C-alpha cells in the first residue's frame, strides 16, 4: 500500500490513460464500421466491416491516437520552454519577475555549486551537464516530433483509403502533408492545448485549489507570483 500511496499520481494517470485508450478503441471500432456501412450503402455494395483486432492495427486508430499525443507533448514542450523566459504576474505557474532566463549556476546547483546528492550528469559537468540541463525539454520535443511524424505516416494511408472509397485521387506522403485533412487534425488539437495551458496559468491568478501545488495557497494575495500551495 505504501507503494501506491507514494506513487499515486503516476499510477492514477497511468490507469486513466489505459482505460481511456481502451474506451477510444472500442468506440472508434464501432464508428469505423458504421462509416463502412454508410459508404457501402451509398455505393450499393456489401459493407467491408473489420474485426476489433484489425481495427487496433489499422492506420485510422493509430492516427487518432497520435494526433492527440503530438499535441499534448507539444503543449508541455512549449510550456516548459515558455516558463523559462516568460513571466505571468500573479500566476503560481510562473517565476517571479526578474527571474526570466536559464538562471545562474548557483541557483541551478551546477558546476562548483553541485551538491553531494546532485544527479551524476551534474557531477560529471561539461557537455554532459549541459545536455542533462535540457533533458526534459529534449524528451518532450523528441516525443512531439515522433508523434507528429507518426500522425502523418498513419493519416496518409487512412486518407488515401477514404479518397479511394469515393473514387478520388490518392496522394503521396508529401502530398498528404499539404492536405487540409492533415492540418485540420493537427490544428484542432493545438488550439485546445494552447487555450487550456494559457487558461491554467491565468485563471490561477485569482482562483485557488486548496492543497494543490498547481495553485497558490488559498490565502495568498492575487499579486504573488511563483508561489505554489
Amino acid at each position, binding site marked *: 500500500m505504501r507503494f501506491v500511496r507514494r506513487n499515486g499520481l503516476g499510477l492514477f494517470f497511468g490507469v486513466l490513460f489505459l482505460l481511456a485508450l481502451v474506451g477510444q478503441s472500442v468506440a472508434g471500432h464501432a464508428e469505423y464500421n458504421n462509416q463502412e456501412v454508410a459508404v457501402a450503402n451509398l455505393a450499393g455494395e456489401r459493407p467491408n466491416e473489420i474485426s476489433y483486432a484489425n481495427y487496433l492495427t489499422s492506420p485510422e486508430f493509430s*492516427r487518432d491516437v497520435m494526433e492527440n499525443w503530438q499535441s499534448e507533448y507539444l503543449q508541455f514542450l512549449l510550456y516548459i520552454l515558455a516558463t523559462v523566459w516568460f513571466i505571468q504576474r500573479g500566476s503560481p505557474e510562473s517565476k517571479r519577475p526578474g527571474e526570466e532566463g536559464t538562471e545562474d549556476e548557483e541557483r541551478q546547483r551546477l558546476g562548483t555549486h553541485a551538491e553531494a546528492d546532485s544527479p551524476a550528469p551534474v*557531477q560529471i559537468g561539461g557537455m554532459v551537464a549541459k545536455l542533462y540541463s535540457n533533458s526534459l525539454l529534449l524528451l518532450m520535443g523528441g516525443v512531439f516530433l515522433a508523434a507528429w511524424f507518426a500522425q502523418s505516416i*498513419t493519416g496518409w*494511408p487512412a486518407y488515401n483509403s477514404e479518397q479511394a472509397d469515393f473514387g478520388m485521387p490518392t496522394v503521396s*506522403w508529401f502530398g498528404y502533408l499539404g492536405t487540409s485533412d492533415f492540418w485540420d487534425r493537427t490544428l484542432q488539437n493545438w488550439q485546445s492545448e494552447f487555450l487550456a495551458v494559457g487558461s491554467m496559468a491565468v485563471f490561477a491568478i485569482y482562483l485557488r485549489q486548496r492543497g494543490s501545488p498547481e495553485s497558490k495557497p488559498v490565502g495568498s494575495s492575487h499579486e504573488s507570483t511563483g508561489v505554489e500551495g
Partner: protein
Amino acid sequence: MARNYPITIGSFLRPTPRCPSDPRPNVLVMRVMFFGYLFVVIFGLVFAIVTGFVSA
C-alpha cells in the same frame, strides 16, 4: 567538479543519498515508474509508425 563517472542510462538515475524527510527512498520504484512511462510512450510511437508504414 568534474568526476569520472561512467556515462550510462543508469547513471542518470543514480540513487541519491538518504535525506532526513525520506530516510529510505525506494529508488527501484521510481525507476520502474520512469521506465514504465517511457516504455509506454516509445512502444506507442513505434507501433503507430510501423502500422503507418505497413498500411502505406
